[in-house]
């Protein structure tokens, strides 16, 4: 049995990972909930968020709150890109077969991630931590970087903010209504097309923000998009496709399984994660907190 401080450190690192996974997977789940499409390109939006943050930091610098400006700018840029893609291309595939929509989002992965390679090359890019959060504290004998602690607070805050938008604002109400019955919503006079664009914008914003915030912790490299998207799939499947708090729960479970899997069965931690995904799909295909599809 490893000592307790180590267990504590592992569980905190699992929690930090969970916060990022939640940011990314919540956007994926939102798009699925409303449009019934799994967006493979969502991982690529996350990667672009990281690259954009790097680029903005190169232009602005990190000091004096400029990192936060860069992160916000990156998320907004990715959100704009997501909205444009929906408006110009994706919109025309709604009536078509599911497979075509899936393959279109995969085509986006190919185009956007190769595009990122053209712009930023294959060398990994790193961003230094924002000043003020460069240090680390010792908690219960485990050393925790301040930036990670900050992420642990920010994650739930963002979750609450998104939940608030979904529950309390007009757009949020429309989005929830569209997830239940888009035809009726359209018949009631809501501009469903514009709503879909908004869903893409919000989801891409969340993905881009996740990428921007992870850039000081992990180097940005090509290929990080195809890796994260499968992880995000696991999270949304465990929690329930289209379920907001389910995604949060899925992210927490994923983070803990992965970090303790590495601790106890280092060889089979990835295996455990996918086995969990398969298990949930077999026993409860709509996920822990989801609703069965009609």
């Amino acid at each position, binding site marked *: 049995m490893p000592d307790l401080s180590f267990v504590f450190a592992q569980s905190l690192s699992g929690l930090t990972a969970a916060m990022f996974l939640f940011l990314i997977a919540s956007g994926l789940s939102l798009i699925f909930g409303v449009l019934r499409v799994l967006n*493979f390109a969502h991982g690529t939006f996350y990667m672009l968020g990281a690259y954009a943050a790097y680029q903005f930091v190169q232009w602005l610098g990190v000091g004096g709150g400029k990192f936060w400006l860069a992160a916000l700018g990156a998320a907004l840029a990715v959100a704009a890109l997501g909205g444009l893609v929906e408006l110009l291309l994706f919109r025309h595939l709604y009536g078509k077969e599911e497979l075509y929509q899936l393959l279109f989002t995969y*085509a986006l992965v190919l185009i956007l991630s190769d595009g990122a390679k053209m712009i930023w090359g294959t060398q990994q890019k790193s961003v230094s931590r924002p000043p003020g959060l460069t240090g680390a504290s010792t908690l219960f004998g485990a050393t925790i970087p301040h930036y990670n602690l900050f992420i642990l607070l920010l994650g739930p805050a963002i979750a609450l903010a998104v939940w608030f938008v979904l529950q309390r604002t007009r757009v949020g109400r429309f989005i929830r209504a569209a997830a239940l019955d888009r035809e009726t919503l359209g018949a009631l006079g809501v501009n469903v097309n514009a709503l879909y664009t908004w869903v893409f914008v919000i989801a891409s914003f969340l993905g881009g923000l996740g990428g921007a915030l992870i850039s000081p912790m992990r180097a940005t490299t090509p290929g990080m998009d195809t890796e994260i998207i499968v992880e995000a799939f*696991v999270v949304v499947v465990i929690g329930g496709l289209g379920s907001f708090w389910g995604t949060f729960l899925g992210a927490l479970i994923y983070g803990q399984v992965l970090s303790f899997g590495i601790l106890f069965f280092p060889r089979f931690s990835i295996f455990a994660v*996918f086995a969990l995904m398969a298990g949930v799909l077999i026993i409860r295909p709509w996920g822990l907190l989801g609703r069965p599809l009609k």
Partner: protein
Amino acid sequence: MAALARVPWGPIILVAAFFVPVVGSRFYVFLANDIVIWALFATSLNLLVGVTGLVSFGHAAYFGIGAYTTGLLMKKLAVPFLLAFPAAALVAGGFALVFGFFCVRLTRIYFAMLTLAFAQIVWAICFKWNEVTGGEQGMPEIPYPDFDRIAALPLVGGWRTSEYFYFLTVIMVALCLWLLRRIVGSPFGRMLTTVRENAERAEFIGVNVRRYELAAFVLAGAFAGLAGGLFGIFNRGVFPDFAYWTKSSEVLIMTLLGGMGTFYGPALGALVLILLNQQITSYTEYWPFVLGVILVVLLFVFPGGLAGAAQAAVRRLGSARRA
């Protein structure tokens, strides 16, 4: 136009494939070998996606399992090819039976997700089980089958080992495609199409839909395993990314590019995609970008794939002549 359809294309292409090493250089034999194997892989997927209407996102799993089966048997246990090759179908089909049992219970997106989950499990095991699969480093130096006795025969001697392997691949894939064609055209195959068109109705008339879907899943997995077995030898090594999800989407793109509605469409897709790849990578390193653009154009302009577009063109020509 009907005359064109009556030409026995299968045998003609088979004979043409045999002439590649006669007229082409080593490089073209390599390319042709790649195409022939992927043609089988894509056609096996089409049995699921095109014929039965089940969109699998984890077909690479069975390709990988077949590759590891044949590779392990030939490299570590020195089993001859004629046993190690069918073993790929057996093992891949066996896994497809177990995984498929759970998958066919789900519909649409959940089906796709579960096939993906199983494929990632296979990938994770291949990636980490160093003692057996060689882990991340994969398993290099898979031996070629033993061609000494064939090379000693009169008339067929004097080729390079890689060319013998190419001939062998062509024969095996031709056999597999012939079998698959028989399966699709059989009453069983017709029933799969019925399941695709209207599963509910099929259920009403007393068809056990799940059992038919499972049978299609196992057959598709077994043939994908055979393609993988050949590919491991051809590639001179087996690696975990054979089973990674991006491989599954590659083969889906091929199937779609060629056209899912026809039997030979996916094989055509394999041919076109591999030739395009070879051409484009000689101009630019950004092949994925080009592929993505091709895919977008395909989805918006030719949703029936190349075979579908060709059929439409032929139809238009025919009606223009009649008018």
